[in-house]
């Protein structure tokens, strides 16, 4: 019925789609393998098989896997596993946000922090720490988390409000985001400068570096549904994001309202990013680089790109954290540092080894 020439574009397209799904499947498998390896590695390591058995015995108690000793259970289930899960959730959420925002704002340099969220979260956390509440064990850290979260949303609302004055466009959002980011950075520096106690400044710097060492089951239970829901909603917007990435006039002529798509994705992005970095501190690089790696693997169709990017982000953050945990034992390197140290060479390798032009 259609073209019966030497090639039928539809068949090519279907084949292409199959490849994309295969890539996503491979990423999923490698993520699971990495997670299993990561759970078993570290100080007082019980060994790969044993570690996996402990986890499986907890998930499928009826299958008769060896649950291991009490101490092994404690290490695996209460320390390693939450941390591995947090790495996966945080990486996936940040990377999906990055892919979404790069698409909607039509800019490959955008990370999900473009709305000034990281600076605002940092300021919020610093405020809580320096004002002293951070030192009261227990309740203190919750206040830091809540404060970082509240200030992230404040930044988003400010950016949205400013951009609205000139009509919400990618340019106004990016410029307003950069400006608000600088504002909160300055406020953050001011707090660190005037903070009376050295310990408080140290705690702030440590928070800003970002880390997964504060992972608890509570943080997983809070973050997991939020991140899954936002990724799902982002994927639902995927076709609209494709269209908006072609330009506003084109999107309008195709029946899509660019402002609405931008507003929805900004809210989703803030929801995911603010929640994650409130728990982990600032982990910036994952959300910038994962979408690029994913785009090199499967192209720009956001229906596939967003899931693919989140899997890449999860793998990247998990690998980085595992390496950061292991190389300088018993000290740890903050995951933010390792992500860049590992991710940049990897990214450059893909960038240079690819023939096809990736951007514009």
């Amino acid at each position: 019925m259609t073209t019966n020439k030497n090639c039928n574009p539809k068949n090519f397209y279907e084949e292409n789609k199959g490849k994309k799904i295969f890539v996503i499947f491979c990423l999923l498998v490698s993520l699971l393998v990495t997670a299993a390896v990561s759970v078993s590695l570290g100080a007082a390591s019980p060994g790969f098989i044993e570690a996996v058995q402990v986890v499986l015995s907890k998930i499928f108690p009826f299958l008769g896997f060896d649950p291991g000793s009490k101490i092994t259970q404690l290490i695996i289930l209460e320390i390693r596993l939450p941390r591995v899960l947090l790495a996966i959730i945080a990486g996936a959420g940040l990377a999906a946000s990055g892919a979404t925002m790069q698409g909607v704002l039509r800019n490959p340099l955008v990370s999900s922090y473009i709305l000034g969220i990281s600076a605002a979260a940092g300021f919020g956390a610093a405020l809580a720490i320096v004002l002293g509440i951070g030192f009261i064990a227990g309740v203190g850290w919750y206040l830091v988390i809540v404060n970082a979260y509240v200030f992230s949303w404040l930044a988003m609302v400010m950016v949205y409000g400013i951009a609205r004055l000139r009509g919400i466009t990618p340019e106004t959002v990016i410029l307003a985001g950069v400006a608000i980011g600088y504002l909160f950075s300055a406020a953050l520096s001011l707090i660190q400068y005037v903070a009376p106690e050295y310990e408080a400044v140290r705690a702030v710097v440590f928070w800003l570096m970002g880390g997964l060492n504060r992972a608890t089951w509570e943080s997983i239970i809070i973050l997991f549904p939020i991140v899954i829901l936002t990724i799902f909603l982002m994927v639902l917007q995927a076709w609209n994001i494709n269209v908006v990435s072609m330009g506003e006039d084109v999107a309008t002529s195709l029946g899509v309202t660019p402002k609405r798509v931008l507003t929805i994705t900004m809210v989703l992005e803030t929801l995911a990013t603010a929640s994650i970095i409130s728990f982990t501190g600032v982990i910036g690089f994952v959300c910038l680089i994962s979408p690029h790696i994913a785009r090199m693997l499967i192209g720009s169709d956001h229906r596939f790109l967003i899931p693919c990017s989140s899997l890449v982000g999860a793998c990247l953050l998990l690998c980085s954290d595992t390496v950061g945990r292991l190389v300088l034992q018993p000290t740890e390197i903050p995951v933010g540092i390792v992500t860049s140290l590992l991710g940049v060479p990897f990214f450059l390798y893909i960038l240079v080894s690819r023939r096809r032009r990736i951007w514009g």
Partner: protein
Amino acid sequence: MKLTINHLSFSYSSSPILKGIDLALDLGEVLSIVGPNGSGKSTLLKCINRILKTKGNTVFVDGKDINKLNLKELSKIMGYVPQSSVSVFPFTVFDIVMMGRTPYIHWSPSEQDYEIVAETLDFLGLSDLAMRHFNELSGGEQQKVIIARALAQQPKILLLDEPTSNLDIKHQLEILCILKDLAQSKHCSIIVAMHDLNMASRFSDKMLMLKKGCIFAVGAPEKVLTEENIEAVYGIKAKVTKSIMGKPQVVPLEPISSKEVSEAPSKFALLT
């Protein structure tokens, strides 16, 4: 479909761009909009397609006010080909043409959408390029892909903003022949903003000449492309002859300096 425009005006903040445009276009007609840079050609196209919102009820399709349609309904009626298209991220030709099906799909294309995209690609001779990346194509090929995207919308009215401006003469001819064919075989009404007066003369049923946001002349090419009109609107001396196709042919001679123009009767005053 019949397109009627009643007294359309538009301004960016305080400066008026379009003033009192009236127009009627029949099924299967090709209308070209000509005029100097900044005369409002692109703005008029964007107003018709509601990319820019005008005050009041001015644009009617088969007597129906387009402001009463939602964006999705409108996008099934009108297709738009912008002046320049860039894709920041790599998309294949097939992906881009599939975006033209957006008004008809929610999240994923149906079997029918695939058929229509494949047919459209075939119609424009783009099937072999389907899996190529858009950014790797030549300007002429890119323009055809963008036209294919607009056609995949299955519009009754097609708006094109200088579709041939950056193309070589073969691609120009090909694209204008495709448009003419669309108008005749699919009864698509076509409005195209153009700079090339001779191409416009040859391919359009009707021409609209804009000067500073006002209609200066409208009607058949013979009526619009006169030496007086061209002098008044473009500020050049030109000779208008008849081409071998029987259409007016414009041979530009020389620009008139702005001093001479200011001495001309006030009706023809232009170029501040």
